[in-house]
């Protein structure tokens, strides 16, 4: 009997891309600019992620932090040193080869935000995935109404994207608020957890759509603060983190109840988050 072939895709083979630039953002975070082979573009939506691999060090999901609107031949990742793969990434010089699969996940749906007041709430490294959406919004500024960015980190040393943050602070068409949990000597801004920034905001309940990304424990409290502002559940979006091995809905690690984060997420509407008992 003759063997049969199938036309299914080989899901687990990465493209070998090139790191074209590495920028140190904080002690533990670096930004990588990555170019795919043959000038291919990634073709991602804001909020999507890729599976990054270094052979011998494994593979991990990393959000794309650059916006597809910037017509660059490369895309950007912001990576925190957290383990096998990411520690090694931090040692890479530019010019290194790196494996990329993706983009994966649903990403933010721009229509949901169009014509609305967009409220971004970013905690810690959560700013990285949100940045792709923030940049997208700012690049097509007239498609959106107000743009409000609320950003909190543990301490001033952990502030990401200082250049961008400065420009957001300066832009008149962006309302930017920031806080740190613990100040240092030079810090002059707000001190306190991120939820303290929400009550003073003047929000138009009818028009505000929020996008929230941060560490797991942050979601519950931000959601409570937004509820207090009477923002309807369906106007809140969250990007959730889970363990992932395949990124294509097979390995099972990212499952929250009956939802695969790598397929149905990582961006979820809060209505859905509430249905998923294990989500936050």
């Amino acid at each position, binding site marked *: 009997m003759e063997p049969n072939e199938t036309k299914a895709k080989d899901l687990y083979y990465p493209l070998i891309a090139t790191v074209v630039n590495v920028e140190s953002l904080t002690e533990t975070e670096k930004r990588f600019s990555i170019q795919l082979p043959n000038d291919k573009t990634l073709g991602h939506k804001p909020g999507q992620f890729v599976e990054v691999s270094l052979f011998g*060090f494994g593979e991990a999901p990393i959000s794309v932090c650059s916006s597809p609107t910037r017509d660059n031949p490369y895309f950007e990742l912001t990576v925190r040193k957290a*383990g*096998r793969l990411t*520690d*090694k990434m931090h*040692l890479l010089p530019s010019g290194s080869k790196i494996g990329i699969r993706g983009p994966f996940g649903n990403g933010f749906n721009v229509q949901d935000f169009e014509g609305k007041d967009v409220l971004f709430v970013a905690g810690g490294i959560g700013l990285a995935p949100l940045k792709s959406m923030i940049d997208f919004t700012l690049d097509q500024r007239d498609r959106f109404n107000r743009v409000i960015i609320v950003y909190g980190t543990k301490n001033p040393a952990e502030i990401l994207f200082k250049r961008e943050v400065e420009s957001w602070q300066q832009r008149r068409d962006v309302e930017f608020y920031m806080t740190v949990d613990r100040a240092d000597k030079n810090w002059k801004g707000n001190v306190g957890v991120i939820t303290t920034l929400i009550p003073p905001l003047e929000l138009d309940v009818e028009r505000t759509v929020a996008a929230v990304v941060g560490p797991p424990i942050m979601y519950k409290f931000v959601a409570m603060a937004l509820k207090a502002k009477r923002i309807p559940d369906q106007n809140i979006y969250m990007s959730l983190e889970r363990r992932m091995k395949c990124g294509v809905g097979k390995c099972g690690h990212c499952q929250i109840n009956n939802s695969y984060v790598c397929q149905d997420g990582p961006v979820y509407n809060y209505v859905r988050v509430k249905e998923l008992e294990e989500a936050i």
Partner: protein
Amino acid sequence: MSKPKVAFFDFTSCEGCQLNKLNFENDLLDMLKLVDIVEFREAMDNRADEYDIAFIEGSISSPTCVERIHDIRRRTKILVALGQCAVSGGINAMKNDQPSEWVRETVYGEDKYLFPSLPAMPVSAVVKVDYEIRGCPMSPPEYLHVLKSLLLGRKPELKDYAVCVECKLKENECVLDKGMFCLGPVTRAGCEAICPSFGQYCTGCRGPVSDLNKDGAVNMLKAHGFSEAEAIKRMKMFNTNDLEKTISWGAK
């Protein structure tokens, strides 16, 4: 890149782990190409001042041991506890369960005060341990994995699930199905389920999984006809320290 300096030290143990390290006859020479062995008392005369990786075998069970291990910790960048004696006190810790006066009396009689001895402690009770290679004896594949990972500069991936997982991956006949008892369901994997693979029950020599359901384990053993006391005794053979958190260690 200069070769990392590796050293091996032994404390109270059977030295089976040391021997196991020499039992990679086929790989030993390859290994020597990648590392510089600078201290290994059982095999060589040299002593060195500093190490990149120190492997520690054996448990800490005398005041001199405590001094030595502090000294090693000061000199080494990475410290790896090798084998169950070093990781948890292992079988040596069985004596911790009994009043030490009684133990020494039974063994040395009137001469008991000649030889000071402490409860058998894991290395981590005295100094910071970076990685642990479990098992009595340590499992060679896991040791190789750790060594290779450290040479690459990455964290090893150590398992924290039951021996049953590896046993099932190998499709062994479950020894429970042969009417024996087994500690595999609550013992940490990493040994490739070697005992059940040879028809023997798992003795629990790699310590309990970190989310141990102790009562569940006792119930399982009871279902195999053990009394509660006997069940706990069986579980304690290599794990007295893990199961008896009441024993107090020296300061961390």
